[in-house]
């Protein structure tokens, strides 16, 4: 009995694809999911909104950078979070082929900078100014880096020019690169439990700035010239003598989406959420133990007016 049941189920699945082929296709729109909570939340919100508008939605787990190969061929359809700071290069390469299109900003700003826990302000008065940080570099030293302070940077693949920044600003710090962001925040958690000195790369929106009390270091403000032209900035002989740029988080999609599901494409372009809302959602999931589904459902219920507008 089970066998015939399975057979009929398989048959039905095979036929359903063809049966609904209308102007707005009933084929599932494939949204990619990655392994950080914020992205899961963003994608889930988009998925729920599309589902509400009657589209068929499927979530596919894919690697952040490798997914572009799938977006180019139409294996995957929508990626909800491409960070200006880490994904720009891959995104530009993909959109240049014409098979991937930029669907605009998500409304969230990516912030990435050196960050310290609040208890360091006692040991190092004058923070968050970067000069004050430099004056007490010794506080951040470890046996491996002494007499220099230890700054824990992100994985080398994130770029960020921290080695260059330390050089250009003549800071007494040594840059140590973590391999993944799990390792990065594991060190933060460990140091925070012991109230031990630490200064490291933190980015937002992320749960860490909401869980741990602390601040971003204030460097001389970023400008494109500062990165490209050595003469600009306080060190006349070096570029990167300033803080890191902040930038939008983009949405991208396979170019065929607009033809196949024009209404959905419009909704994706309309998607917009603020850093604060996202920070709250991420904190609900990662710190308060809510499931992504519940947190998203709660947000959708509370913000109906805003997301209804995306599909109009």
């Amino acid at each position, binding site marked *: 009995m089970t066998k015939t049941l399975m057979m009929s*189920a398989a048959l039905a699945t095979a036929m359903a694809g063809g049966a609904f082929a209308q102007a707005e296709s*009933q084929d599932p729109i494939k949204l990619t999911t990655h392994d950080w*909570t914020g992205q899961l939340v963003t994608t889930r919100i988009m998925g729920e909104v599309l589902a509400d508008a009657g589209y068929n939605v499927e979530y596919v*787990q894919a690697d952040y950078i490798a997914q572009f190969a799938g977006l180019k061929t139409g294996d995957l359809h929508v990626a909800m979070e491409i960070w200006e700071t880490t994904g720009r290069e891959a995104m530009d390469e993909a959109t240049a082929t014409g098979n991937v299109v930029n669907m605009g900003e998500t409304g969230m700003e990516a912030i990435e900078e050196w960050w310290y826990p609040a208890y360091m302000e006692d040991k190092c008065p004058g923070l968050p100014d970067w000069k004050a940080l430099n004056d007490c570099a010794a506080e951040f030293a470890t046996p491996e880096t002494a007499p220099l302070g230890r700054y824990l940077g992100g994985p080398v693949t994130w770029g960020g020019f921290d080695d260059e920044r330390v050089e250009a600003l003549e800071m007494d710090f040594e840059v*140590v690169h973590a*391999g993944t962001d799990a390792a990065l925040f594991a060190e933060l958690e460990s140091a925070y439990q012991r109230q031990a000195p630490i200064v490291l790369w933190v980015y937002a929106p992320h749960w860490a700035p909401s869980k741990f009390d602390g601040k971003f270091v204030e460097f001389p403000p970023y400008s494109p010239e500062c990165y490209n032209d050595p003469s600009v900035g306080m060190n006349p002989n070096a570029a990167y003598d300033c803080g890191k740029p902040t930038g939008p988080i983009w949405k991208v999609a396979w170019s065929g989406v607009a033809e196949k599901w024009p209404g959905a494409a419009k909704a994706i372009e309309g998607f917009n959420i603020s850093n604060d809302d996202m920070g709250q959602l991420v904190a609900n999931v990662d710190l308060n133990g809510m499931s992504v589904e519940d947190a998203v459902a709660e947000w959708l219920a509370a913000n109906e007016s805003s997301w209804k507008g995306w599909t109009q």
Partner: protein
Amino acid sequence: MTALRRPYIFWLALFAVTWALSRWSFPLYKALDARWIIKFPKAWELPLEGWISAAMAWLVESATFGLFTFRDLTRFISALIEAPYDLVRNLLVDGFQTGLGQNAVEVAPSLSWIAVIAVVGALAYYAKDWKLAVLVGACFLYLAIFGQWESAMVTLASVLISVPMGAVGGLALGILSYRYQWFERALRPMLDLMQTVPVFAYLVPILFLFGFGPVSALVATIIYAMPPMVRITTVALQTVPPEVHDVGKMTGCTRRQMMWKVLVPVATPTLMVGVNQVIMLSLNMVIIASMIGAGGLGFDVLGALRRLDIGAGVEAGLAIVVMAVALDRLSQAFAVRERGHAITGGFVKRHPWGVTVVLVIVGTFLAGQFLPALQTYPDGATVTTSRFWSGAIEWINVNFFDTFEAIKVFFLNWLMLPVKRFFGGIPWPWGVVALGLIGWRLGGWRLGLLCAVMTLFIAASGLWPKAMVTVYLCGVSVLIASVIGIPLGVLAAQNERAGGIIGGFIDTLQTLPSFVYLIPVVMLFRVGDFSAMIAVVLYALAPAVRYAAHGIRSIDPGMIEAGKVSGCTRRQLLWRIKLPLAAPSLLLGLNQTIMLALSMLVITALVGTRDLGQEVYIALTKANTGQGIIAGLSVAFIAIIADRIVTALARKSKERLGLEA
């Protein structure tokens, strides 16, 4: 006397020259104004990386067989794998539905948790006895109680697909290489590469060819898990006693009958060992597979650790261990199962278990319509120890960090940094020469040439400095793993109770995904080489212990008696008789320890190292096929060089002991 001494002179001289060159390579370069000594000239670097990436792009985008493209072919293969996978997955987790996405209507639910436990329990009873049925059933019950059921079933679905494919594929390749010498010779280097090239290196091309989602993960798992099956099949068929061949010939078997009716059945117990290996390796891949879309327990581990929920990570990790234990015992039981007498009687009497299982499946399906708890394990009844783990780590961190720090600084200053400087300073031309000399000395000019060429390849790819960091990290870790592991193994062999405890500990360490302890290690020891080393040692400890125990246990008791009779103390017995006789086994263990250490180095790139593992990982995150494959090959070459050299050493020591001609 001189004959005894000469080998030492060779090794001493080699070490002295290497040390001197390593120490003074920099002044040497300045004095001769020859920068090529310390750095391989950019102009001579092989442009292989670009070629491989271009070849890959061509394969994916334009390669064609006329009627269909290469991509169509690989996508067709994915469809072939996906169909059974979907079926199993629907059966175990998702249930059967018609329609797509949220328009889907459920036709039939998945198997209930009770039904799955009944099935595995019945299988275990069929394979062995009640005890095993209880053990396996308890393992699966654990998954339900700790709230891991759904993820565990996703993982089980991929294991259920990748294991038969890996086993059947391995069997076919093994039979071919048993039949045709040339095939075996062509296949052997391929197998070496499949086992030594880190999985990360070929994930990207697999994604390009097989598309996104679980199928790519399955393909990667099969590639990783198949080689032992091939090797074991060949060996199993070769070791079938000649009498059996004769019987086959006398009864007039055709070639096909000889293979399938005579050789394969006789070799079945050994073949099942291969299947067991495929299962264990597939479970090893769970985490990596989840990085490219396999989902399941691996994804839970990754996700939990990204939000630093160590407790949840440990629980999902232990769920993988529990599943490994259940499947391992089950497959081992099948390997040694004795066929009982055929029971005669009606259908029900002949198949009591089949009937019971069907009754449970149908029963829980029907009852599940009214009592959902019978269909899906109720969330409310799950247990979690998550808080305990997080609390334990915090407590250790707050109270013992300074102690750990002191230990770490000691190791760094007195062991790791000097070794790093030594390897880091070796100029690449001397590295090529030295490895050639070592290979020649131990295994003749062929081995020497192989070592030299492989080393040159690494240097010519511009990866010399990273390769040296790899050798240093791996060397230090193997040293420490041996220092800890060999005594443990000796202890396990001499004391049965200790043996049981050590065995359980080692099994857990090997099946627990390394990711689970990687993050707590970082919390306690910070990002750096020391953390990486600890993770590698934990993972690579197992073979050192196992082979040491095996070596001691398999010593001819007559030898030990002889020692006792001639009045050896316990100490003398160990040092003068047992250890020298176990030397070949210890070397095999060393070989395996090196292999595991190298495979783990790629994982430690996730902590932050600057070795070839990092190179492979960077290539993965940038989706750069060429870079990944070149770095992967470099790791494989280091592994192959180490393997050949240690094997040659083992052969020499066997000859010396007169164990084998």
